[in-house]
């Protein structure tokens, strides 16, 4: 029995081959969800016309081509990017704060980022550089506030950080509401969408900015995946096993803030993705971040594409903000997790 257990454990251990295989399978799932989302919508587009599009037999002015390339595709890619970033951010926050309930939305990092973006619009800065930079600054400010207020006075208890996040979230949302209420009409819409999450503003120019940022963020954060495994056992334990904890935390917080800042600037506040997807991934693939990071991020991309497809079709021809769909699913999920694991997680 002992030998069998030992052999199983050795065989089940994580290898680069296993990570690559499972990542490729998840990427295939993402591709399938993306294709499905491309043909589902208010305008009826058959698989046949999709085939015609790929074979090049549609003219450039064909409405199908315009709907697919100008409207649906950039939106789907944006949804994928945002889901990817929020899930990745959730996994990393949960490990760094050793709190399974942490995610960029609940911790207020998303709303801090949206606050930065709204400030950029109020100041008349453009979407090219000004809004993403201010959005990043807002995310960074929130992380800094969380660390300062959550650790100095009350100790590094993970529930304190979570409560602090809830308070920061409410505070920034109130500021955004203030600016919306006092803004001139033409600016109102561009601010309003941050509060509910909206992926319809996807443009290829934005995507070409977000894509490289996400790729760089993934590469950097993956480099720290082993470190994150050890940090979940406690910062002291991680240091004893050879992790430069302060440096790891600093780099990871900075990278996640940048990533969240950039996606929130173009998507607004979409909650609970960073909570739900990492949990589902952890239930299926285990807690090793060397696998959890790719599974959560690719899975998050697929999840948000599916949620956005639902958002734009469920009351067709009208649309729901995608944040409403994710909140419908995420809020009960949060309560479920809290009730199931609350007592254990309350130990610090």
């Amino acid at each position, binding site marked *: *029995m*002992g*030998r069998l*257990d*030992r052999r*199983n*454990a*050795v065989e*089940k*251990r*994580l*290898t*680069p081959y296993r990570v690559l295989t499972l990542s490729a399978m998840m990427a295939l799932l993402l591709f399938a969800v993306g294709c499905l989302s491309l043909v589902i919508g208010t305008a009826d587009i058959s698989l046949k016309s999709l085939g015609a599009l790929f074979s090049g037999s549609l003219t450039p002015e064909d409405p199908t081509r315009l709907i697919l390339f100008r409207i649906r595709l950039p939106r789907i890619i944006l949804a994928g990017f945002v889901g990817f970033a929020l899930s990745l951010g959730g996994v990393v926050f949960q490990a760094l704060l*050793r*709190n*399974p309930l942490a995610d960029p939305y609940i911790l207020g990092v998303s709303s801090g980022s949206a606050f930065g973006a709204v400030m950029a619009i109020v100041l008349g800065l453009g979407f090219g550089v000004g809004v993403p930079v201010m959005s990043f600054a807002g995310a960074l400010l929130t992380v800094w506030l969380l660390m300062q207020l959550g650790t100095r006075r009350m100790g590094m208890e993970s529930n304190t950080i979570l409560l602090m996040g809830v308070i920061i979230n409410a505070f920034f949302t109130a500021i955004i509401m203030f600016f919306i209420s006092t803004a001139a009409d033409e600016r109102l819409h561009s601010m309003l969408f941050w509060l509910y999450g909206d992926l319809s503003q996807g443009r290829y120019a934005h995507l070409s900015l977000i894509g490289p940022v996400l790729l760089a963020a993934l590469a950097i954060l993956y*480099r720290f*995946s*082993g470190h994150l*495994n*050890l940090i*979940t*056992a*406690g910062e*002291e*334990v991680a*240091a*004893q*096993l*050879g*992790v*430069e904890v302060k440096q790891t935390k600093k780099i990871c917080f900075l990278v996640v803030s940048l990533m969240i800042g950039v996606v929130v600037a173009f998507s607004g506040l979409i909650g609970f993705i960073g909570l739900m997807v990492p949990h589902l991934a*952890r239930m299926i693939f*285990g*807690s*090793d971040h*060397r696998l959890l990071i790719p599974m959560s991020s690719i899975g998050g991309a697929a999840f948000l594409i599916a949620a956005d497809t639902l958002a734009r079709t469920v009351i067709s021809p009208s649309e729901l903000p995608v944040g409403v769909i994710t909140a419908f699913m995420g809020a009960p999920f949060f309560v479920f997790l809290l009730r199931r694991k609350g007592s254990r*997680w309350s*130990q*610090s």
Partner: protein
Amino acid sequence: MEPILTLSDIGFGYGRNRVLAHIGFQVHAGEIIGILGPNGSGKSTLLKLMDGILLPHEGEILIRERPLSDFKRSDLAKEVAMVSQENHFRFAFSVMEVVLMGRFPHLGKTQFEGKEDIKAALEALEATHTDHLAGRSLDELSGGEKQRVLIARALAQEPNVILLDEPTSFLDLKYKREMFRLITSMGKSKGLSVVIVSHDIDLASQYCDRILLLNKGVIHKLGVPEEVITATDIETVYDCPVHVDRNPATGKPRVSII
């Protein structure tokens, strides 16, 4: 014998509260040192200083004549491993995964374990009699089993010194004995030095080469068990009347509370 760890006139405090003062001793290769003392005497703090988790306010710690503060954390983890009392995993990891964490300082840039790492982990599991638990989740284990797995992780680190902070606190009599026997055999066969903080005076007396008795942050006495574990010293440090005689089976000092 060449000292592996040298502590010279170490002083440390939390804020204004001075916890340790004038601590100086050496740990030699293959030696087992037991640190005894009442609650709050600075035992755990001393271990954290020896592992570089805390930095001394006064004095210096050397690892083979090189200042500990010069080591990168990953290099230090190859020299010194610690099993502390703080080990609360927030997420479910299997026993094998936890033991393989001990290989972290040895991993290359790919961060994946190779054959050598698996071999080291399996040896550590065998040495601590936890190999039958390899596939189980750490959450499912008893306190004693968990403690042995954490010691296996420290062994997988392949350090020269292991620091153990009350390693037998969750163990029953059988495993307490086995743990001390394991520690002793590691010291003798692999030249591994072990420093154990313990409240179990009799086991420390039986298995440790030297005993360091701490009292209010200073060394009360340091020497072989027969020199340190005397009725006068134990009564002074623990503020409790005791009777000390020799264990008829081992000949080592044995403490009974009066």
